[in-house]
């Protein structure tokens, strides 16, 4: 089903089981946060892991998606599902703009253009009145799903987030393992050859970029509905750094890696916030250790050891 290999199928079942039973053991709000970031990291991984494009501006889509969902839910009373979709759409549109400007560039230049563009989006968010500036959009109501099911209860909300996550996760997996996904990998491995085979590589990259931005927007929108708040944090470049770190820790170019990375880093953050001032240092140490010793990430290394794809 869904083109899973056997190890992937087993991993998926483990993940599914974890998603279902973990609320019994952990604080549901933290788990919802993990799922939102897992989705964000999966979106990022789609770009860097499967096309080899390292964006340094993904926070723009995540944060903007969050703002749009929060604004439409709070000011227009939009159904939470529609608000999240609106966040995703705006993320995708923004992605189209970024992509249009940046796709022709590679490597460090691509990273720098996306960084510069996201700085502009950040600036726009500090200036535009609808974002509420430094305060952000606060006290966003979770509302009623399809006008019927109240999401005020954490478990109801959790179920919705879990469904969004699983559906999108499967969608990404399906894309990666489609003929389209094969072309993407060809571009990652050797772009000139893909071009010479007659593929318009820029069009492919563009599509993936938009898709990735759209999913990031959905992740951001979901997060802002869960927490009832959308702020500059999510659109600032530190957030772009964090999603890179999650993807890196879990394993770039693995299906499950970004999910694991999001899980680990969010648990560390949740734990260290209590611990005090060592948060930034720990994050830095993880970065350094990863680059020095686990360049393929945890699942990447594991997969290489076991000689399977995860």
């Amino acid at each position, binding site marked *: 089903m869904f083109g899973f290999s056997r190890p992937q199928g087993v991993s998926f079942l483990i993940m599914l089981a974890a998603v279902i039973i973990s609320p019994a053991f952990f604080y549901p709000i933290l788990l919802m946060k993990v799922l939102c970031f897992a989705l964000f990291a999966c979106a990022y991984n789609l770009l860097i892991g499967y096309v080899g494009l*390292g964006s340094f501006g993904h926070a723009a889509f995540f944060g903007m998606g969050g703002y749009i969902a929060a604004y439409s839910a709070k000011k227009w009373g939009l159904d939470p599902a529609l608000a999240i979709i609106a966040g995703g759409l705006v993320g995708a549109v923004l992605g189209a703009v970024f992509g249009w*400007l940046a796709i*022709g*560039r*590679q*490597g*460090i*230049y691509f*990273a*720098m*253009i996306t*960084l*510069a*563009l996201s*700085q*502009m989006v950040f*600036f726009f968010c*500090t*200036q535009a009145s609808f974002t509420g500036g430094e305060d952000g959009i606060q006290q966003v109501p979770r509302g009623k799903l399809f006008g019927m099911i109240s999401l005020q209860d954490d478990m109801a909300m959790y179920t919705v987030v879990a469904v969004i996550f699983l559906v999108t996760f499967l969608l990404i997996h399906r894309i990666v393992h489609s003929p389209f996904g094969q072309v993407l990998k060809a571009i990652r491995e050797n772009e000139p050859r893909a071009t010479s085979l007659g593929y318009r590589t820029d069009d492919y990259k563009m599509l993936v970029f938009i898709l990735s931005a759209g999913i990031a927007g959905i992740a951001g929108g979901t997060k802002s509905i869960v927490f009832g708040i959308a702020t500059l944090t999510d659109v600032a*470049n530190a957030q772009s*750094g964090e999603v*890179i770190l999650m993807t*890196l820790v879990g394993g770039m170019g693995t299906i499950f890696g970004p999910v694991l990375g999001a899980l680990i880093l969010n648990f560390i953050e949740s734990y260290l916030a209590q611990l005090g*001032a*060592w*948060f*930034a*240092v720990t*994050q*830095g*140490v*993880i*970065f*350094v250790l*990863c*680059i*020095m010793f686990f*360049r393929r990430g945890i699942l990447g290394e594991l997969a290489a050891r076991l000689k399977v794809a995860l």
Partner: protein
Amino acid sequence: MFMIFGYPSALLFGQLLLGLINGAFYALLSLGLAIIFGMLNIVNFSHGALFMLGAFVAWGLLEFLGISYWWSLLLAPIVVGAFGVLLEKVFIARLYKLDHLYGLLLTFGLALVIEGLARNQFGSSGMPFAIPRQLQGATDLGFMFMPNYRGWVVAASAGMCLLVWLVIEKTSLGATLRAATENPAIVQSFGINVPRMITLTYAAGVALAAFAGVLAAPIYSVNPNMGASFIITVFAVVVIGGMGSIAGSIVTGFGLGIVEGLTKVFYPQGSSVVIFVVMVIVLLTRPAGLFGKGGH
């Protein structure tokens, strides 16, 4: 006093001069980054942290050993340069064969660690650092009151930039360096120890950052976050100038300082973003930056 675009000319001239002063820091920092990028192919994200470290070394020398500002201008770059040797040997040397992205992420991580430790140790309100006695006071230029120390910053940084440019472009050492950038194998075959040269280049690049840090200490408080607020802008300067271009980074540094200065008159809120607007425009029209060669 006449007016330009509805602003008093004195104000505009004042802002131009201030832009130049900021540009002096951009130029020094981006020069170090450009040297490191040119030689090591590493985007040194920890540059801002090392700039901060330079300022802290100067502060420490004064506070604990009573060593004056002037000696710090020499000593702090040496201390931070030595630290740079350590960083290069232990971490960065292992990444040369990899994609740029890894070097960038590694140095980003190092910056988080250095800045985080400094914050834990020193807090964040900053340490006062007095302007050296000889440079206190200010000169009335007619259109503005120019603190002598700021004048010194522009002169010192322009002098240092010129010196570095001369060394790289006009001396045999510079020629060897440039050759090693182009083709390390051949230079190595001439009996030159290229890995050591790379290490020393990194040390020199971060020493420049430390030098800028000492210059900055009396202007901004000596503060663990002082580098973090500069680094992204300095990156933009390097990219606009053309990655790895020595002259490009110097000229762009001063130039963008001025652009930013003028923005502060016409649209102050936009002063933090104007450089990125310039960067996108430049990269779309000249993908390799203003002074860059080739490039993708």
